[in-house]
């Protein structure tokens, strides 16, 4: 996975969040405070502003910049979570201009570990972690197979899609949605949804 693909990934992600802004916000309106789409587009608009400054730096710098930018522009719960995800992901691949499958796994693992440390989600809490935990498990299983990053991502995308759908029947135990108790059941988690778009756009960028 080359640096240019990372830049492409980020641009696609910005586009998708803009397209899905209302959809994400509607998901959040059902069980949160109706701002997740607004938060993500605000954050990625800032990322797009910052990107030219670091586009010629190494991958780690780019990823860390994404993290710092999200952290200082998103706010709410998803700001520190995604901020940490990109920041820790970047720190895990220090100095690289391209990522091997192993690098990629290390990056995702470190990022998701950041989410876990920051938000302390447990599996089944109905958060973005319920998307990432099965994805990391699947990545780990396949990482030794000799797949390149593109093949790896393509292979785990169905896992992510299933994990996303699996958030629907859960009762939230973290974040704003938790205050709804049983009324949170039956809705797809907004943060898991925006996380799914990260893998979907990456798959497109690598195709």
């Amino acid at each position, binding site marked *: 996975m080359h640096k240019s693909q990372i830049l492409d990934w980020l641009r696609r992600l910005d586009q998708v969040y803009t397209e899905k802004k209302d959809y994400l916000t509607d998901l959040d309106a059902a069980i949160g405070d109706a701002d997740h789409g607004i938060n993500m587009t605000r954050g990625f608009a800032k990322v797009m502003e910052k990107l030219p400054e670091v586009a010629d730096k190494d991958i780690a710098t780019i990823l860390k910049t994404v993290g710092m930018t999200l952290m200082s522009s998103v706010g709410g719960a998803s700001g520190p979570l995604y901020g940490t995800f990109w920041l820790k992901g970047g720190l895990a691949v220090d100095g690289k201009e391209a990522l091997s499958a192993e690098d990629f796994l290390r990056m995702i693992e470190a990022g998701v570990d950041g989410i876990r440390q920051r938000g302390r989600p447990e599996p089944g809490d109905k958060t973005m972690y319920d998307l990432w935990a099965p994805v990391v498990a699947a990545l780990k299983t396949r990482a030794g197979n000799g797949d390149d990053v593109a093949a790896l991502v393509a292979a785990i995308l169905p896992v992510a899609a299933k994990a996303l759908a699996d958030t629907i029947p859960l009762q939230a135990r973290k974040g704003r949605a938790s*205050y709804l108790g049983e009324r949170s059941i039956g809705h797809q988690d907004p943060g898991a949804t925006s996380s799914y778009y990260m893998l979907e756009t990456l798959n497109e960028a690598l195709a």
Partner: protein
Amino acid sequence: MKKLINDVANVVKEQLEGMALAHPELTVRYKPTFLCRADAPIKGKVALVSGGGSGHEPMHGGFVGQGMLDGACPGEVFTSPTPDQMVACAKAVDGGAGVLFLVKNYTGDVMNFEMAAELVAADGIKVQNILIDDDVAVKDSLWTAGRRGVGTTVLAEKIVGAAAEAGYDLDRCADLCRKVNQYGRSFGVALTSCTVPAAGKPTFDLGETEVEMGIGIHGEPGTHRSPIAPVDVLARYAAEQIIDDPAYTRTVREWDGAGWADKVLTDEPFARGDQVIAFVNSMGGTPVAELYAVYRTLAAVCEEKGLTIVRNLIGPYITSLDMQGFSITLLKVDPEILKFWDAPVKTPGLVR
């Protein structure tokens, strides 16, 4: 939606500009946004910093000043501020004795302040974070993100602000703040929804004869809806939710100087003979006269339950934009708390 605003995109910024113009004793900074005392940093004094989404004014920005907050970080309406705001604010107000972050327990606020604490500590500034989680409408801390931070926040900012002014060091400020939080409980009732400027329409629909019980401060739905009832009934319900609330145990995460430490805290219920500060708060759209009817009932319920109200605070202090409704906070006091409650304070939102 009818509001005294210009473009919805600039609501918070323009209100802050108005504050800066009206209160030269405050400094307002943008990019990143924060407010602080114009005389900050104060050498040797612990600096108290709070923050959260906007829409709760006068909290927090209106409580910056002598005897209360050193700095405040306003987010967008109902959206947590970001760590860079908190870090910049902490650096601006630290006078060498460290910074106490006073944080309302909402996932976003908690995580952003946690990141800020790590960054501030990495810069060599002593830092502590204390959570306020006092909303008894949330019963359960295992199945939820825990009790929300509501009315006790105002009282804690006042009391810990006075202690910092009086020379308490960071640990003592943190201990006092934790105690105030553990001694305080709140419950809120909405008569109408609020309208978030960016949304342009009421957050929820409440019928002409309905009220929402057990609300937070972001227009989130409460525990249940009731038919509208006389203030005696509503205020009694709220008061009893607070006074009859049993012990509440949860785990909080505090910065211990090097990393995060989990603490299990149990708030004991009120007991006959307790002395309390009674705080009757308007959600923003309810005029103060109606709050006195709430206070009248609250005083009667406290008397029945054997609680003595030794001080009170009545008015709009922690609001939810234009929402009509009220919240009640009762804070058990001891001589330490009472002394700092009575200390002078000079802020735009609270003066004594």
